[in-house]
């Protein structure tokens, strides 16, 4: 009855990879569901400390790519090297153990729980006291609870959601739910943070707030971020490098300016007469 991954995997933020070194290397990955090819032979790398954007039209395979990275899908071909360790398939909870956290396109919060509990749940894997101590509550279990509560309160302060601490997240407006979800991902203290459309359905002000949080996370905490986003203004301003997918294939990869002027990308987004 020990539902936690090996603690040694958790406490290794310093993995010998310098800032700018390759943190995640996806090599020649292909993924198909029956006859449908979601991803065809894509290679991409994420460097430590950067903000990496994955863009492309609908159905290009962006979300599938994130699902492959955090172990939700197992690709039929190709390998993934994360922090110098190669793996073909893993369970999502093992990916968490290695330091990968993510948010979802359509918010996936625990609706019946408060904001505080949602973010605390993000720290479950870091809490160690077993059911015996939990039953007694006072003593080690309470100390641990408070220690993690302090970390969670830092995140709550950072995301400016103090006022909704006790509110069940099901009752929150969409923009705040997205923020709570980011908070839950941050509570896992990830090395690599995957954001699936963090600004979908937000108004301008909420987008600006979210952009600010993403930049702060990246710069203050040194978290590497890979994000999917449809708002080109946001993508071009935020990211260091951009990879463009279309129909499951990689069509461009480079700095925002390079990508912006790439003919394939313009064709994919605007369409070309055949």
């Amino acid at each position: 009855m020990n539902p936690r991954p090996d603690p040694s995997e958790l406490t290794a933020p310093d993995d010998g990879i310098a800032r700018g070194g390759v943190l995640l290397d996806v090599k020649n990955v292909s993924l198909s569901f029956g006859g449908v090819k979601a991803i065809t032979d894509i290679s991409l790398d994420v460097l430590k400390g950067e903000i990496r954007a994955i863009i492309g039209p609908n159905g290009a395979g962006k979300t599938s790519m994130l699902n492959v990275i955090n172990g939700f899908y197992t690709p039929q071909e190709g390998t993934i090297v994360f922090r110098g360790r190669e793996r073909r398939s893993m369970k999502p909870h093992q990916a968490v153990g290695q330091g990968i956290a993510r948010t979802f396109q359509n918010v996936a919060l625990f609706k019946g729980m408060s904001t505080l509990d949602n973010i605390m749940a993000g720290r479950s894997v870091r809490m160690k006291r077993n059911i015996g101590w939990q039953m007694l509550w006072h003593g080690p279990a309470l100390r641990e609870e408070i220690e993690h509560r302090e970390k969670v309160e830092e995140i709550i302060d950072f995301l400016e959601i103090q006022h909704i601490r006790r509110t069940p997240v099901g009752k929150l407006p969409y923009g705040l739910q997205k923020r709570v979800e980011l908070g839950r991902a941050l509570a896992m203290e990830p090395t690599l943070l995957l954001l699936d459309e963090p600004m979908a359905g937000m108004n301008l002000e909420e987008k600006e707030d979210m952009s600010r949080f993403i930049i702060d996370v990246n710069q203050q905490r040194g978290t590497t971020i890979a994000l999917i986003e449809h708002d080109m203004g946001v993508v071009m301003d935020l990211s260091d490098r951009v990879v463009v997918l279309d129909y499951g294939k990689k069509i461009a990869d480079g700095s925002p300016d390079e990508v912006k002027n790439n003919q394939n990308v313009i064709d994919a987004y605007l369409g070309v007469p055949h």
Partner: protein
Amino acid sequence: MFYRTAGQFKSSYEADHALFPVRQDAILLGVILVFAFIVFPVTASEFTFRALLIPVLIYSLAALGLNILTGYAGQLSLGTGAFMGVGAYACYKLVSIFPEMNIVVAIAMSGFFSAAIGVLFGLPSLRIKGFYLAIATLAAQFFLVWLFQKWAWLYNYNASGAIQVPNIDMFGITVAGPRATAMTQYYFVLCVVCVITVFAINITRGRIGRMWKAVRDMDIAAELVGINLMHTKLMAFFVSSYVVGIAGALFVFMWRGAAEANLFDIPLSFRVLFIAIIGGLGSILGNFLGAILIVALPVIIGSVPQAFGIPVDSAMVEHLNIMIIGALIIAFLIIEPHGLARFWAMIREKFILWPFPH
């Protein structure tokens, strides 16, 4: 008026994590405990003990066990009655094989048998959810009751096929069997229920409780925050079946005194499920409120009209009882799926704000 929270400030996270953030709640609980430990035993008659107090506590405990599984971890189960049976038969065998064993130890150990069986029948939950899982636990219900009937070793090859609780002493006092007094048994059950309730509160408000609720609310997201679904679900089955098993052992040893296999059949499972639903899924308090309602209802129907001079025969009481419980369940599912516990929460909220409407 009573619930003034003004002036109660939290200056540490420890204070914020306290069981009763509002002082009046602690006072209220203290009053209830005084009633449970002193006032009721002093005033209650033998009939009150047997028909109300003891069954309320035992059903509360069984519902608490089910609530851990269904209300907290979100795994629907219809096998509660059979798991209670496992606890009861395990306790019976332990007492007959080791007659000198302390009854508290025997009851605590019998919980582990039902927990093991619960985990075994919880294995399908790794693949199936919701109604399909309910059907899988229904299989446990039918299989186990069949086993209780057919496996004569379980009831010591008794010609009647029933288990009879022998007289059991603890520290010179008879606590179970025909010679035990209702008051002793009431105190015994009350202590066990208090201890397990405290443990259950502590588990559900900490890390494990959050993990269960995460699995209940969105299992995919739970997996992606690093929660191992298999371990978490099976742990819920383990803890839940343990508590249910204890409730089953108390059910036979401290209340019924004897039991046949069909006592643990599906009506018992439904009864416990109704208590959990009416009381409120995902709440500890709800189990007690639900059990009070379900156990007291037939007693009230039987006695109140008679007090007004309206004769009601026992068959009528039974019919009215079934009709009212059925109506209540439908009403609760529609009006307040969170049950009586939510009603109390709303009343409490009003008291705190009183006399202002908002």
